[in-house]
């Protein structure tokens, strides 16, 4: 079978799967799977026979993990979902991140309240990772507007980066056994100390395998006008690290807003990074005119990409996991909106077109070429 582009779209009302050939001219849509139930995270695991995973987050009856082994034509529940030990006292509220582990059947899962779980059998059974889930800071983390979520799991050899809103960035250098807060240079506009040890509202972290020391972070920005204790806190929203997340510095200069949720790195160039700036007060597109901003020099400068996107009267939000990029030679960006539109940005975001304009509100988008 020739290569196919698969886009998994997690929405408020279930999971949709869009499939196309490499031209990406026409996408066939399937779903909703897990109908009526919100999906906050998906994973397309391309190792061996591709598998698709999705969290199915039912506020009535609890959390499930869905799994497909036929590129998203049929989904079945795995035998169990992550769950806290009975004596722990915490109960699962949501599933925010799914990532592949080392082994063929290894999975990592970040949940709300912020905790990490691992599976070694493709999601049929789960164990809590105590090094971060029971970290001495864990009971001091606070929920952000979306809840106390562990939304980012980035692995780089023995290093594991975790992003928590609100908790900050945590780094393990022993494969996930122990973790330490690693937030030097990561600001928190909403705390008396603008640069606390932990407690930052990190929105998303992204990296690139060709530049393992390099990380990009979309942090909770929008504090340039802050006039309370500690003074102004401009440009704390978009950050870069060059030392495996030990220290961070601002790369927000040139953006219309340092507030946003997703951050995505070009698959073939670690210097090219994308953000989706939003107005701080409304968390919608600045001036009602959506645009993605691209830097091709690691955040040194930014270019506005809006050709084909609405020029006015668009007030959607792009959530933290609702932007992705495929791995074709001329990659396309995929952008899901809270108004249920899925946009395709060809040539790395130079030219946009709407693939689907009336889906339920979109929480997450993951794309893979399989």
């Amino acid at each position, binding site marked *: 079978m020739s290569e196919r582009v698969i886009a998994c779209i997690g929405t408020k009302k279930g999971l949709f799967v869009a499939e196309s050939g490499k031209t990406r001219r026409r996408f066939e849509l399937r779903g909703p799977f897990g109908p009526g139930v919100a999906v906050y995270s998906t994973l397309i695991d391309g190792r061996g026979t591709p598998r698709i995973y999705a969290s199915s987050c039912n506020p*009535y*009856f609890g959390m499930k993990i869905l799994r497909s082994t036929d590129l998203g034509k049929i989904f079945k529940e795995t035998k*169990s979902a992550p769950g806290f030990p009975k004596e722990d006292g915490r109960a699962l509220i949501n599933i925010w991140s799914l990532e592949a582990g080392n082994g063929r059947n290894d999975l990592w899962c970040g949940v709300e309240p912020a905790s990490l779980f691992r599976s070694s059998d493709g999601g049929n059974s789960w164990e809590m990772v105590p090094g971060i889930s029971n970290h001495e800071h864990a009971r001091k983390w606070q929920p952000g507007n979306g809840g106390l979520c562990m939304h980012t799991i980035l692995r780089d050899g023995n290093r594991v980066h975790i992003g928590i809103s609100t908790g900050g960035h945590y780094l393990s250098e022993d494969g996930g056994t122990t973790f330490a807060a690693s937030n030097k240079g990561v600001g928190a506009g909403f705390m008396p100390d603008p640069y606390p040890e932990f407690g930052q509202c990190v929105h998303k972290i992204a990296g690139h395998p060709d530049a393992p020391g390099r990380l990009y972070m979309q942090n909770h920005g929008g504090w340039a006008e802050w006039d309370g204790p500690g003074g102004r806190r401009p440009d704390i929203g978009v950050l870069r690290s060059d030392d495996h997340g030990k220290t961070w510095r601002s790369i927000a200069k040139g953006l219309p807003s340092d507030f946003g949720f997703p951050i995505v790195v070009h698959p073939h160039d670690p210097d090219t990074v994308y953000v989706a700036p939003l107005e701080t007060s409304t968390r919608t597109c600045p001036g009602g005119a959506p645009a993605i901003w691209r830097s091709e020099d690691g955040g040194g400068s930014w270019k506005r990409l809006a050709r084909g996107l609405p020029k006015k009267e668009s007030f959607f939000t792009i959530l933290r996991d609702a932007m992705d990029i495929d791995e074709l030679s001329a990659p396309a960006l995929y952008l899901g909106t809270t108004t249920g539109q899925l946009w395709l940005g060809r040539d790395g975001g130079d030219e946009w077109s709407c693939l689907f304009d009336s889906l339920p509100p979109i929480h997450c988008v993951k794309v893979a070429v399989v």
Partner: protein
Amino acid sequence: MSITVHVPSPLRGECEGASRLQLSATSVRAALEELERRYPALHRSICDETGKVRPHVNLFVNLAHVRDRDGLDTALAPGDILMILPAVSGG
């Protein structure tokens, strides 16, 4: 003593498609424990990991909400019907 558990349609997949389950229990808590033993996935959909009934799940004994009686300690008599109903909320 035998009581009947009415299972709502979204949860029937967790108990082999059954809409009604017969089991022996003298309290709601005992009924849930029996469900946990026989249908762990169904129990997980009703209660969280701590054993609390999920906030959007309501349990009725005949016509009375268990919160208006003795909660999970509400006594069950032979022939009682324990209904599992999702709370009505939407969006």
